């Protein structure tokens, strides 16, 4: 279990993370979601004791990171980008990590096998593709067979097969009873893997909820309807007690009603419909709505 309480990090006058309080529980995959620059990596570095919080506290099973006697068997982390020396072979990279924590050397072969890098164990990572580098990072994280795993943007650079593999791996690790904490800026990716969701934007907590609840709250179905006479359609729908929301293309979105009922209202008023369809708001849209206004680097439209 990872517990954050009032975690805050400032760089000079700029606040990267502010007052984050949440817990990451064992047995499920917890997604850590936020736009670029929201403070996900900074938070993960603070969990690992790499960056010092300006205030607040992080505990791993009740201990500070530097109080863990054998950190790699406690928590394994895939850090952002590549955190390896490009001139040291995959085998020796894992060997120096294993030695630093007294992890038996046979684990090196096991994790290389698991991530599918056995064939390049004696090769230097400078020749690795992005995906291979990512797999080596995952091998380092799994080396100590830790009870907590933290992955920073693990699908970055992986091909579809690799993405599929890591999704299953994370679910598998969670079902072993481990704590799995994974960051991403892609809602669609999280929807497929995470059971629990923590969303941040500009360093602040925006949501801490189960995935099922998030989907239920944010993907309400609605009906999209368009007519040759939008004004009359609006009035007829409003008269029937519905609340049509006008769209830029002249159509309306109507929530909480079956499409058939909208069709019946239109027929009763003699309206010609150009479109009548059932729609569902995507989670991506829900995520964008949630984080809108807290996106640090926003592209200007037009």
């Amino acid at each position, binding site marked *: *279990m990872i517990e954050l309480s009032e975690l805050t990090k400032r760089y000079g006058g700029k606040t990267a993370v502010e007052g984050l309080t949440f817990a990451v529980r*064992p*047995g499920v995959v917890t997604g850590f979601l936020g736009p670029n620059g929201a403070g996900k990596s900074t938070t993960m*570095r603070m969990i*690992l*004791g*790499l*960056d*010092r919080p300006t205030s607040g506290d992080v505990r791993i*099973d009740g201990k500070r*990171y*530097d109080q*863990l*006697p*054998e*950190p*790699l*068997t406690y928590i394994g*982390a895939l*850090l952002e*980008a*590549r*955190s*390896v*020396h*490009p*001139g*040291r*072979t995959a085998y*020796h990279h894992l*060997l*120096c*990590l294993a*030695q*630093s*924590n*007294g*992890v*038996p050397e046979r*684990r090196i072969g096991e994790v290389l096998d698991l991530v599918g890098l056995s064939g390049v164990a004696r090769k230097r990572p400078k020749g690795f593709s992005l995906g291979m580098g990512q797999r080596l990072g995952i091998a*380092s994280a799994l080396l*100590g*067979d*830790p*009870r*907590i795993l933290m992955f920073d943007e693990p699908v970055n650079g992986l091909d579809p097969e690799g993405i599929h593999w890591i999704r299953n791996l994370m679910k598998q690790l969670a079902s*072993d*009873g*481990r*704590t799995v904490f994974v960051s991403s800026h892609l809602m669609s990716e999280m929807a497929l893997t995470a059971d629990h969701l923590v969303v941040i934007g500009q360093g602040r907590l925006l949501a801490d909820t189960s995935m099922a609840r998030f989907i239920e709250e944010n993907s309400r179905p609605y009906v999209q309807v368009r007519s040759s006479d939008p004004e009359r359609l609006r009035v007829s729908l409003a008269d029937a007690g519905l609340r049509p929301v006008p769209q830029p293309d002249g159509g309306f979105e109507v929530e909480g009603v079956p499409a058939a009922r909208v069709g019946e209202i239109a027929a009763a008023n003699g309206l010609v419909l150009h479109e009548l369809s059932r729609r569902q708001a995507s989670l991506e849209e829900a995520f964008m709505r949630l984080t809108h206004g807290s996106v640090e680097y926003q592209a200007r439209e037009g």
Partner: protein
Amino acid sequence: MTAPAQMPPPPPAPGYASPIPVVRTHLGHALASEWTKIKSVRSTVWTLVLMFVVTVGIGLLFAVALASDDYVGWPLLAGGFFGVMLGQLCIMTLGVLVISSEYGTGMMRTTLTACPHRGRVLLAKTVVFFSLAFVMTLVATTLTSLIHSSLLGDQDIPHYAVQDPYMEGSIENGELVATAGHWMGATVGASLYVSLLGVLGLALGALLRHSAGAITTLIGLVLLPLIAAMFMVGDSMETAREKLIEYSLLNGLASLYRLPMEGDDTATGWPLLGMLAGITVAALIGAYARLTSTDA
């Protein structure tokens, strides 16, 4: 009568329990890890080979040149100085790279995640690098000194050389010899000097976290006093110039070979070696402070 309330079973240990035995880590683990790191990068091996070739090669060339010529009035082992002077550049560079390359590649984050005790990481790096640098330099300087002693040992001593103060102890029964003190200076002393410079580089690497910056700073520390002294002309600056040369780091190495550039002709170089050790320890303390107080 009711049965006594049963104690609730202890809650199951949260999460996953690994079959891997848990080991409490200590300095030994960090030392083993750093030893693997230093020997598994090609550049380390090549830098050491280059140091060896330069030190022994130039030493050999000097010995051959001196042997075919008339006696030039140097102590027996002094010619080894020039090879070491160049060979030390390799050790200085290696010392810096041991830590700065980890910052450059992002490896430092992995290292500190595996071993959150930053002081332990710095200590392990220092011990492993210093030992390796010292042993390798000791082999190179001993070999060079043996070459000099076997090639130059039988040279004739001209009468004027006998009176030179810095030849004290170098002449015995009209033959050129090296005392135990000379041997110590030209082997153990020179190796300590070069390895300490390397550790100074390591400390600078930790302070600056930038390879080129740290290497430039270290070379500047070694050479600047001499270069500055070159431009201090005139009587008014003579004292300053002499002191600058006398206490320059390079004069320490020269003195260990009994070729002091300035000051006491009989200087052994050991006090200057002590000064270098002091500077190195101070830099290491600074590196420790930076490492433990700032974000990785």
